[in-house]
């Protein structure tokens, strides 16, 4: 069954050039994979809820880390980036709500959207702050 699940794997193509953020992105992908696998394997709602809570906590922490780095280095694209974070968090919250209403079966499209959103974010906007931070001596 696992063969049908496309798991996210961090690779150098999605490096933003800042070690801590690269590692956080990798952990974010692993955490997301854990949620997907739990749903595919039909794990109980308690288990999925725990993993999803962890994904929410981790996402919040990661976005906060990025925003701190951008703030400290006066990154010009901070406001726009922060809005993008809010959009992804809203998507994530929608997923948590669905699960709370016992809608396990309808989680899949939402998780796909979330996965695409995360990937597009890492491969898009996140690539912009790396060079700026590197110039400020953060790598």
């Amino acid at each position, binding site marked *: 069954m696992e063969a049908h699940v496309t798991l996210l794997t*961090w690779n150098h193509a999605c490096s933003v050039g*800042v*070690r*801590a*953020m*690269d*590692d*956080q992105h*990798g*952990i974010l992908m*692993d955490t997301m994979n*854990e949620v997907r696998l739990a749903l595919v394997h039909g794990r109980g709602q308690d288990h999925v809820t725990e993993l999803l809570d*962890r994904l929410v*906590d*981790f996402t919040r*922490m990661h976005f906060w*880390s990025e925003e701190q780095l951008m703030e400290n280095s006066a990154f010009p694209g901070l406001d726009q980036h922060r809005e993008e974070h809010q959009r992804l968090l809203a998507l994530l919250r929608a997923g948590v709500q669905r699960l709370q209403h016992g809608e396990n079966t309808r989680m899949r499209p939402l998780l796909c959207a979330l996965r695409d959103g995360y990937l597009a974010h890492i491969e898009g906007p996140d690539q912009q702050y790396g060079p700026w931070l590197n110039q400020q001596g953060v790598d």
Partner: protein
Amino acid sequence: MALLTWSKRYSVGVDAWDQEHSILFGILNDFHSSMLKGQAQAVAGLLLNKLMDYTRQHFSTEERMMTEAHHPRLDHHRALHHELTAQVVEFTGRYKHGDQSMYLPLRKFMRDWLDNHVLKEDRECAAWLNQHGIH
């Protein structure tokens, strides 16, 4: 931000095993926290040493108790321990060769170890021990 903090809900039902499992939770948490700060490389050597010590000490505790109780699953469980130990040795080798791509897989390996080995396999073995009066 800790990844997983040991609590009663992660108990497998044998006190000596629980105590040692909490060490693995600690090792994983420390590594996770270091990764968040981009310091995986700086701590990986020490972590792998700790992990190797842990496998030696903890696996022998489990196997000794299972041997004494004539646990029917001992051979299977021991084989799983050998596999886990082999993976720790492999990660140590990668670290010594300066493999920078090993940190995420190492974190995931420990995470799976907790989920699949400790919380499933160990729990099953411990349940048998409990049925035979060992807690």
